[in-house]
């Protein structure tokens, strides 16, 4: 009898944590199918309740999301996280960053580990539908490039016959590379070496394992600055794809998706309206009804999103508008000095266009 008794205890001890774990999982990490709970348990409520925004970033790309020596994050992707935190929680620093590599990012998002991704993720139909994601407006229009050594030996994709290319797994670049090599007719002669993480991939490239390293151009420019001799490497004059990069949320949570979407548009709209970190107080006193509505001085635009009406005023005050974010991280005020190019307002010939705030 004693034997059976102890066996029973052992089983109970073994099973108890599993069941408690599983049941605890349902309310927090996910919603149960029970009536009524779905509507009230949006990510938005969870973020407000928690008091911090958990944002999935890359953490290794200077200019987009990069951790400096003192552990502070900076970059355009990071500033989008800060903008969302400012809008929802009133505090741009209420963000917990998670560094995710390209293969773990979607599982982390759909598993509820992060509230949103702001991790140079390309918007594709497959990810929008099959993978089950929602893409907020593009914050950076990019294209895929190829980083090669500056010896002038490799100029087109055809020159890559018999050479090797390093690439990060689970990215659109991995797929585009295959397509482009096919188009160039050299797909059987090029060795594609795939790494799960960016760091080993760039290290392998730096050590001469591959003649080329392919990724989004902006990422290559950012990463080049971390290579041993940045000047020895150049971007090949080729654009292999369209890479619209932007924040991502989970499917079927439109309340939360709307917040991320309109905060992102808000950054663009703020630039268009000429509202900056420096002149926000003046702008709040403005007579222009569009600006007054945008900053929540009149109307109730924030209410529909479940936010304060002056949410964009808080965002711009703390983080700045899109133009300021760009200049600070990638543009004139940064080490990269990247031209705005496509990432300029539509009024100046770029692709950034926000629907009206009214």
């Amino acid at each position, binding site marked *: 009898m004693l034997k059976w008794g102890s066996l029973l205890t052992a089983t109970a001890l073994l099973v108890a944590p599993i069941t408690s774990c599983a049941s605890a999982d349902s309310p927090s990490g996910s919603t149960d199918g029970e009536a009524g709970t779905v509507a009230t348990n949006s990510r938005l409520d969870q973020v407000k309740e928690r008091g911090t925004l958990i944002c999935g970033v890359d953490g290794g790309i200077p200019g987009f999301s990069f951790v400096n020596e003192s552990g502070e994050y900076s970059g355009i992707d990071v500033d989008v996280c800060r903008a969302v935190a400012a809008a929802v929680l009133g505090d741009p620093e209420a963000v917990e960053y998670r560094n995710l590599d390209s293969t773990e990012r979607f599982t982390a998002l759909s598993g509820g580990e992060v509230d949103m991704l702001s991790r140079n993720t390309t918007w594709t139909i497959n990810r929008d539908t099959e993978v089950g994601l929602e893409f907020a407006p593009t914050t950076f229009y990019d294209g895929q490039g190829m980083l090669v050594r500056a010896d002038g030996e490799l100029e087109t994709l055809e020159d890559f016959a018999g050479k090797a290319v390093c690439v990060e797994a689970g990215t659109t670049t991995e797929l585009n590379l295959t397509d482009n090599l096919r188009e160039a007719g050299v797909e059987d002669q090029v060795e594609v070496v795939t790494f799960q993480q960016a760091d080993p991939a760039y290290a*392998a490239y730096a050590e001469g394992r591959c003649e080329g390293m392919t990724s989004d151009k902006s990422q290559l420019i950012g990463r080049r600055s971390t290579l041993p001799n940045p000047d020895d490497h150049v971007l090949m004059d080729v654009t292999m794809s369209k890479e619209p990069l932007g924040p991502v949320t989970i499917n079927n949570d439109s309340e939360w998706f709307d917040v991320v979407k309109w905060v992102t548009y808000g950054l663009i709209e703020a630039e268009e309206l000429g509202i900056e970190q420096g002149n926000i107080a003046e702008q709040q006193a403005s007579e222009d009804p569009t600006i007054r509505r945008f900053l929540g001085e009149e109307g109730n635009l924030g209410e529909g999103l479940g936010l304060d009406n002056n949410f964009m005023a808080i965002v711009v005050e703390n983080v700045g508008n899109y133009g300021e974010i760009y200049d600070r991280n990638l543009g004139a005020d940064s080490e990269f000095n990247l031209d705005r190019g496509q990432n300029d307002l539509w009024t100046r010939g770029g692709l950034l266009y926000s629907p009206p705030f009214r």
Partner: protein
Amino acid sequence: MTTNQEHSIPLWRDERFWRIVLQVLAVVVVVSVISLLWHNLTVNLNRQGMEFGFDFLDTQASFAIQESLIPYDPAKDNYARVLLAGLLNTIRVIIPGIVLATLLGITVGVASFSENWLLRKGSEVYVEIIRNIPLLLQLYFWYRAVFTQFPNPDSRFVWFDSIYLSNRGVFMPWPAMTWNLLAWVVVIVVGAIAALLVWKWRTKIMVEGGQSGKPQMYALYGIAIAAVLIVIFALGWQAPTEPDPGVFQGGLRLSIEFSALVTGLVVYTAAYIAEIVRAGIQSVAKGQWEAARSLGLKPGLVMRLVVFPQALRVMIPPLNSQYMNLAKNSSLAIAIGYVDIYSVANTTYNQSGRPVEVMLIIMVTYLIINILITIVMNVLNRVSQLKER
């Protein structure tokens, strides 16, 4: 009387009753845990508007992989095919890994009993260093510090115009994959079995009949010479050729990722196998050593003929778990860019958005690989056990 007695036992003191109740309870617990997890999964998937299913396996994979044993065209082939290619790449690591790790492990393990001070200490140092460093670090070491440091393709090593060594990998002559090759391999296997039978027969007639065994010896020489001739001339060895710079055709190619992974796994696992071998040899009674020595056997023969066969019995069960570890550890390939099944699956679930299904496939795959290893090792175990007659 007996019936009376049975009735007098209350239900809660009846051991048979408790046995049944506990079994039922165990089943209920297992079923409810699984259904709870399943429920959780389906609810979460539904919430994201997704459905559990394996249909995605038939969609175009469209990502290139570095090396494959089967023809794979990213433009046409589906996820199932690329997963199969990944699985073959995994097996391609596991089999030579197990063979080489066993050889190295036995050598090091036996060396720890050597009378030679240098050999003995060398084996000790090897085991202690390797066992105390995580495998992932060792893989990085082999890949980054050793194999990527090989010369660039421009300044590669070339031997006899047929072996090339650079940081792209090793290219060497290898038999061309044809039916012809398969036929000759069958011939060699049949020859080996025949040689074994002749050897046994020869030993028998020498011991029991007191014959010289010379004619049989000549037959064995004949088989050996034929085998060598077949291997050299009939297998259709093909040297790698280079029609365009950097583009190789024919021959065998071992990429540096493959080489680093196999080296890392072999060196790591061999350290554990060496300890198993040492334990096995130490488990053989001291009297066996002494008896063998007093028969006048040389140290090498004492080990080979008397001690090692007895040690083998103790060694096989723990060896099994080391082989399984090697198989599972091969999934670290992804860290150094080798396309094994885990690496391919990783990309697959990322591109298709099917983590749960792909993870299930992976788990079942590794389970099957390890069950196969266990079955083989159990057979070996049965063969090596003491025969009680």
